[in-house]
């Protein structure tokens, strides 16, 4: 080991650390403070509008893993969707199903705190997927929905 810079390199490092000690910490105290997620957030759930869905199952075909299960029943001229199940335990939130839907009936959800205690509670049935005040659709692939959502907290603008 040679002290090529006569110990000045060590002193410079100490100055940098000291400057950082006087700054505000950049931690967010979760769960008291939460950052606002982006408008196009791909959460671990879907939001399904039953009146627009026709049961064409394009979403089920475009899923890389086959997480969506759709069973339809014929009712006169129309098809009624009897079972629409999503296995969120296997879902990787890629968003291909949302992009594929031709009737704009499927949206990504905004939730990310979806831990459950039992594996069967992770599978979402038809009733769980409908929109509700806690379950809002996100603006992924739908810019008109994205404009109404709150802005994301960007760490670049935080001092």
């Amino acid at each position, binding site marked *: 080991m*040679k002290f090529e810079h006569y110990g000045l390199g060590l002193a410079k490092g100490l100055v940098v650390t000291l400057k950082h000690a006087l700054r505000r910490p950049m931690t967010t105290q979760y769960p008291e403070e939460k950052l606002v997620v982006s408008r196009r957030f791909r959460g671990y759930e879907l939001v399904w509008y039953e009146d627009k869905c026709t049961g064409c199952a394009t979403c089920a075909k475009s899923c890389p893993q086959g997480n969506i299960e759709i069973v339809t029943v014929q009712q006169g001229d129309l098809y009624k969707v009897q079972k629409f199940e999503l296995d969120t335990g296997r879902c990787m939130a890629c968003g291909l199903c949302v992009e594929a839907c031709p009737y704009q009936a499927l949206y990504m959800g905004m939730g990310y705190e979806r831990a459950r205690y039992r594996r069967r509670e992770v599978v979402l049935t038809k009733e769980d997927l409908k929109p509700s005040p806690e379950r809002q659709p996100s603006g992924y692939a739908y810019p008109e929905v994205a404009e109404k959502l709150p802005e994301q907290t960007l760490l670049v603008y935080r001092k």
Partner: protein
Amino acid sequence: MGILGHFQKWLVEHSVPDWASYVVPALTGIIIALLFLFLMIIVFIYLERRGLGRFQIRPGPNRAGPWGVLQAFADFIKIVTKEDIVPYAADKPVHFLAPVVSFFSAIMILAVIPIQKDAYITNLNIGILYVSAISSLGAIAIFMAGYGSNNKYSLIAAMRGVAQLISYEVPVLLAIAGVLLISGSLGMVDIVESQNVPFILLQPLGFLIFFIGVGAELNRSPSDLMEAESELVTGYHIEYSGMKFALFYLGEYGHMVVASAVMTTIYLSGWKGPILPPAMWFLVKMVLVCLVFVWIRATFPRIRVDQLMSLAWKFLLPLALLNLFATALEVMWQDKIGWEQFPWPFVFLNLGLAIVFILVGSKLLFKTGGGQVEV
């Protein structure tokens, strides 16, 4: 005389039998010293965890208790409720006694440290010699831990640790010798009394050597090879669990408390200061030394073991000898110049000499330790 001496005289005046007037002050002194040690250990652990966090732009633990004060207790409860596993073929007495010896050597040094002019347990007139002798016991504790575990990895790590401790004691003692030349006495209270100007200003090079040497003896980063988790194994306390591991941990912080107390006494003029009560000054200076240790830990990477040895023997030892030589010359001439009345020229002279020695030393003395070996 000391506070305990006054207490003993008071007991004798109130006609307490002789053996009691000896035992009661002693027990009181021991209990107060232990409480002081534990309190300072908890303060130092808190400072280290929160301080390390602030240097890394994060708050540090702040959930256990208000502002995270009870975090050390939470860790202690967790460690104590673990199972105490002893290896089957380990040497039982040696394995049992190693953490005790390690913590013991930290406690024993407390007996001579003066917090205020009268507040000490005893005022040995060989105070510094006693301190350096007891601090060498730490090396024995590490070797006992490594040998008694019956594990070849911990033996290798313990031998490396003992080599590190032994080789860093020599520059530390030589740096202390420079202080002794100026103060003229080995007793701790006398060293503090003789500091009109704190010795850190009169002996900058000695302070630097002492600081680096003590940092290596405490196994603090940048020389914390024992706890390096990026090496293969964790070192000499790999086979310890439960309360024995907690004793090692307490022993490490206890050594840190005691080392900063010794550093405050020798170099930073102990309890002297303008406005606050003297005991407060002592604590403030100890906390300052701890913060500098934490600052260094947050910044520097780790040295490799062969570079560590060459730093001690080829760089610090010649510098300590040069420092001793220069101090001896100055003490010889102090009668003509008047050291006690006006030490400030010596401050600047010593600072200049320190810079010159470091520059010359870094150019000439050091060579890279180790390299690629031909296989």
